[in-house]
Structures are given as structure tokens and as C-alpha cells.
């Protein structure tokens, strides 16, 4: 591990390099490096520079507003927040997961599979495929979906249409592209009619075929570059996520499972409503993002990874045949119990994309999916906890309300927070192994971003006004004087100042 690079001893005598912001991630983060006179990296950190204040945004609102309100926390994963909040407020109206009407449960799963499919497609094809297809240090002009569409038109088009299909699943189930009210307390607001079902069925076989092709593509890319792909930014870590009661891959509802780097069980089938008993969050002064860890293992050893790599590592099987076959090949390539390659996040992500496409087909053929019994009722409670596997990993929503149904306390642990320590470790590993001692250039620094992007971090929410967020790269001397500065403007122009 590279924790010794978190804080350098002689910081005031080191050069400072800033990658701000990290590109092709959601939100605003930056990487700072401190270098000695030989360009040796002495400190590397991924910072989160925006304080989000989710909890204050939610407190004081009536609980029934939450499924719509929390969608506005994030423009890239609104459905994940929508469903986690819905599961939490189910409990506020006295409805446990087992008591949710069958059709409502299946509609929520369909909605979730659509969300994960479109999110994974976006991440791989739009954000990461340029790095993977053209090379981590390729010309910056190549690193975009436009270049992929020009050089690999079939792959680029598949990405666009897979993403579109997932969005259409969301639209059909929730009734709107955004701000939909699909899930409500105790169930779902809208049934799926036959025309909507048939509309989605028309293209699903094509989506599955593209899912198969996507897995083959990433497997080919990954295995063509072994052992580089198995070593780049790679960490031997713990992994956590939901699984089914029998250990199968689960994205919507299950118990918490955590395994260590050797594949040994840390916890299994753990009731997520008791997450506070096993997870604590550490605060560090240099970033707004907390560092969660498993209490039983302590701060130093208890941090873990979540998301596609964790889920595919942790599960005993995947319940759809094509994705299961892909999982078996994935695990076999590493020749050990757990796959630790950070770049294998992409491979695992596409296995999940295939699983989502297969699962959507199964659900669309299930008669329950068009059922009309959609809402259950129960006795009011004052506390609700909802957990799902969002595209980026385990997402916790926890609310308390008063007698007037107003939210008095809210706590959210978003997936990216769980991966905070791992992303920092990956940054430090890349800085130490690939950058240290070399003259820093923009293509070289892209290696840091490649490591971060593998996690598909969602660092913030959906403010995206025109003209915001230029990228700056600054080089300072040992006395803090600016030696060199590159600025990438909003129109893409790169200028040396």
C-alpha cells in the first residue's frame, strides 16, 4: 500500500502539481501532487472541493416528497437516489420489503436495471472507452466519444443506443425522463401497460447482443495488455455489497456481505438497517469526503471497495446465463479468489450491464410486470433505512421523521464515499509507480485520471452551467513560486500561461 504518500513530512519544501478538476467524472475533484527536486512524488491526494450538504437539503421536508426531491441530488444517478429513498420511506409507512406488492417490487427492479444499464453504458462508452481504445497517454484530442465514433463507429453507436434504451426503460416505468414519480411510499405510482411493455421488448434482444459484444471487447482489451492491466492502480482490498440470501448477485435488495482480499468472509447476510453497527466514517482535514471503514477491522485495515468489482467479486453466482458465463471467465483470469485489478472495474461493469439487459428481458416476459396491485400500507414508523446497489456501489439512505411527517434527520452514504480511500490509494500507486521521477506532462497526468475514472466516481451533483470549471495544471517551485501553468478553457483551448 502507499499510505505513506498521503502526507509528506517536509511539505513546504516540495513542488506542487494540481490536476483540477479531474475530468470525465461527475462533480468537482482535484488531485494534488507534491514533488521533491528530483520530481519524486512525496505526497498524492484526491480532494473533494465541494461541500454538498445533502442532509440539510433533505431535513425539514415532508417524507413523501423525498423520492422526487432526492433525484435532484445528482444529475447522473437520480434513479438510484429515488429508489433508495423509496425503500426508506416504505419503512416509514410500515411496509417492509417482503410486504411490497409483487408487481411493485418487479417494477422497481425493472426501473433499477434500466438505470444501471444506462449508467454503465455511459461510463464505459463515453467516459472510459477513449482511454482504453486509444491508450492512457494518447493525444488529448483523441480522448472523447467523438473520436471513438470516428474510429470505432459500431462501438460508439452501441454505446449511444444502449444508453438510450436504459433511459427509455426509466421513462416507461416512471412516466417521465426526469423527476418521475415511479416509486412512492409502499409501492409504485404507475403500472406498465402492454404497449409500453411491447415497446421495450422490441429492442431487448439487440441490447443483450450488444451487452455480449461489450463484455467480449473489454475482455479482449484487458487480456491483451496483461499484466499491465492487472497491475495498474491495483489494490488488494476488502469488498462490500448486497447479495441475495443464497449469495447471488443482487442490485436492488439483499443483505450486506463483505469479503477480505483473500476471499474470506468478514460479514454475510447482514441486515443493512444495522449499518451503523458495522460502518463508521472518518473525517480528514484536507477533503470534504469522509472515509468509511468496517468498525471490526479498524480505520487502518477496515476500508473497502464497492461497485461492480466488489459485487462481481463478492457474489457466488449471477442469475442470468450469459452474465454468469462471463463472471466465470472473469474470475478465472485472475486465478485466485478475488480480482483486485482496478481496471477490472470496467470488465465487471460490463458483465453487470449484460446482466441488466438479460434481467430486463426476463421481467418484461413476467406477467406480474403489468400487475395493477401496486401499493401496500402499514403502521407509521419514525425511522426508515433504504439501501440499494447503485451503479457505483452501495448507497445508504437513512431518515427519521417527527409526528408531523417532517424529516428531522437524514444520513446518506453514497457509493463514491465508500471508495474514497481506495481512489486515494490508487492515485498514490499510480503517482509512485508511473509518474515519480519523470517530467510531468498532460498525457502522463491522464494516468491519474484513468485510475480515478475506473471507479466511475460521482463527486457531486448536477450543476453544469455553461462556462464553469476550467482545468488548470500548475507547477510551483520549492518556494511556492509558479513555474509553469497550463489552462484548458471552456471551449477546449489549451493555453500555457
Amino acid at each position, binding site marked *: 500500500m502507499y499510505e505513506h504518500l498521503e502526507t509528506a513530512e517536509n511539505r513546504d519544501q516540495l513542488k506542487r502539481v494540481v490536476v483540477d*478538476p479531474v*475530468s*470525465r*467524472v*461527475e*462533480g*468537482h475533484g482535484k488531485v494534488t501532487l507534491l514533488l521533491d527536486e528530483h520530481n519524486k512524488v512525496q505526497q498524492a491526494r484526491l480532494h473533494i472541493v465541494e461541500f*454538498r*450538504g*445533502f442532509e*440539510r*437539503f433533505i431535513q425539514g421536508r415532508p417524507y413523501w416528497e423525498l423520492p422526487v*426531491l432526492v433525484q*435532484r*441530488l445528482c*444529475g*447522473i444517478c*437520480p434513479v438510484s437516489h429515488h429508489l433508495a429513498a423509496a425503500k426508506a420511506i416504505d419503512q416509514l409507512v410500515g411496509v417492509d420489503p417482503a410486504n411490497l406488492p409483487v408487481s411493485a417490487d418487479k417494477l422497481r427492479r425493472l426501473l433499477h436495471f434500466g438505470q444501471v444499464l*444506462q449508467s454503465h453504458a*455511459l*461510463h464505459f*462508452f*463515453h*467516459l472510459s472507452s477513449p482511454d482504453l481504445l486509444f491508450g492512457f497517454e494518447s493525444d488529448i*484530442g483523441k480522448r*472523447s*466519444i*467523438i*473520436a471513438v*465514433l*470516428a474510429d470505432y*463507429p459500431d462501438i*460508439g*453507436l452501441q*454505446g*449511444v*443506443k444502449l*444508453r*438510450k434504451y436504459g*433511459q427509455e426503460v426509466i421513462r416507461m416505468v416512471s412516466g417521465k*425522463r*426526469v*423527476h418521475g414519480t415511479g416509486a412512492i411510499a409502499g409501492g409504485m405510482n404507475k403500472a406498465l401497460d402492454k404497449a409500453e411493455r411491447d415497446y421495450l421488448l422490441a429492442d431487448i434482444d439487440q441490447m443483450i447482443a450488444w451487452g455480449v459484444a461489450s463484455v467480449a471487447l473489454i475482455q479482449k482489451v484487458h487480456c491483451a495488455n496483461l499484466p499491465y492491466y492487472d497491475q495498474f492502480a491495483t489494490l488488494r482490498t476488502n469488498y462490500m455489497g448486497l447479495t441475495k440470501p443464497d449469495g447471488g448477485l443482487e442490485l436492488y435488495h439483499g443483505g450486506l456481505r463483505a469479503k477480505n482480499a483473500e476471499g474470506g468472509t468478514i460479514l454475510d447476510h447482514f441486515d443493512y438497517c444495522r449499518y451503523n453497527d458495522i460502518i463508521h466514517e472518518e473525517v480528514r482535514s484536507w477533503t470534504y469526503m469522509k472515509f468509511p471503514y468496517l468498525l471490526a477491522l479498524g480505520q487502518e485495515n477496515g476500508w473497502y471497495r464497492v461497485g461492480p468489482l466488489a459485487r462481481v467479486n463478492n457474489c457466488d453466482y449471477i442469475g442470468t446465463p450469459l452474465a454468469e458465463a462471463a463472471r466465470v471467465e472473469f474470475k478465472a483470469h485472475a486465478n485466485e479468489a478475488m480480482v483486485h485489478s482496478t481496471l477490472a472495474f470496467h470488465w465487471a461493469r460490463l458483465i453487470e450491464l449484460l446482466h441488466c439487459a438479460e434481467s430486463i428481458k426476463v421481467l418484461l416476459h413476467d406477467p406480474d410486470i403489468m400487475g395493477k396491485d401496486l401499493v401496500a400500507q402499514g403502521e407509521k414508523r419514525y425511522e426508515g433505512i433504504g439501501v440499494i446497489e447503485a451503479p457505483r456501489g452501495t448507497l445508504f439512505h437513512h431518515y427519521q421523521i417527527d409526528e408531523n411527517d417532517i424529516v428531522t434527520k437524514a444520513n446518506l452514504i453514497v457509493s463514491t464515499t465508500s471508495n474514497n480511500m481506495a481512489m486515494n490509494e490508487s492515485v498514490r500507486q499510480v503517482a509512485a509507480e508511473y509518474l515519480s521521477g519523470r517530467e510531468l506532462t498532460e498525457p502522463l497526468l491522464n494516468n491519474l485520471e484513468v485510475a480515478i475514472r475506473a471507479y466511475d466516481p460521482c463527486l*457531486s*451533483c*448536477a*450543476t*453544469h*452551467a*455553461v*462556462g*464553469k*470549471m476550467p*482545468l488548470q495544471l500548475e507547477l510551483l517551485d520549492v518556494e511556492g513560486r509558479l513555474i509553469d501553468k497550463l489552462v*484548458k478553457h*471552456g*471551449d*477546449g483551448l489549451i493555453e500555457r500561461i
Partner: protein
Amino acid sequence: MPVKPVLVFAYGNLSRGDDALGPLMLEAIERQLQRQAQPIELLGDFQLQIEHALDLEQRELVLFIDASMSGASPFGFTELSPAKDNSYTTHAMSPAAVLAVYQAIKKQQPPRCFLLTIRGETFGLGEGLSAAAEQNLAAADRFVYGLLADLSALAWSEFTQ
């Protein structure tokens, strides 16, 4: 269902202060259009993405609407050309990049597309619309009312700045 020849596509987040300008402008247009039948489709989203290129298919004229932190005040109006993505900081894309995706997929020029940017000041989570943004929205509303009275690229191009 036949595709309407004119698309108005606004994007932004209603709960991020002045980032709500896009969706609020869309709501205002929806109210305007209720008074008259128009060959206009209204779409909204949090942010632009690659698949929105497919929303441009079979259109003749497109208006994108967004909040702007640095554009003209109270609003700016420009014609768009396809351009390689420079919106590198988030998962979102610029409208010009969406046009470039369309061009790459369809192997043809996109429809005539224009961008209305309404100047905003604050974009914090949970914030309401700023006073300046409210005034800018009212000015943009009057401008769009005139714009939609003549649904031709020629007429719109005369309004560009």
C-alpha cells in the same frame, strides 16, 4: 408517433439555485403553447448526454436552453455548430458536442440548432432562484415568445448575438 419538426430542449436542476433557469423556461414555454397548437416538442433533462443526439433526428429546428454563469446578461442567443466535446469535467456534454455526436452517428449535418443561455448567479444545492435570475428569466420569456412566433431558422438567425 410522428416527430414534431421543432424541438425545444431545456436542461438543468430545479434544486440547484439558478441552474433551474432551463427547466423553468421550459415550463413557461409550455404555458405559452397551451394557448395555441404548435409543431413543437418540449423535452427536458438534468444535463445533456450522448443519447440526446438521437432526439435531434427528423427535426428541422432545435432550441437548447441552459443557465449560464458567464454568458451575456440577461440572456444570450447563438447558433450552434458541431464541435468536439469540451465538456470534460463531468458526465455532461455541451450542446455543440451533442451536435457532433449526431453528425458522427448520422453522417449528415444536424438540423439548425440555437442555444439560449440565461444568466444565473448562484448554483448551490437547495438554493432558490436569485433575484437577478428571476429578472433574466422574465426577459428571456419575452424573447422566446417572439422567437416562437416565427419558427424558421432564417428568422432565428437574425436574433443571434
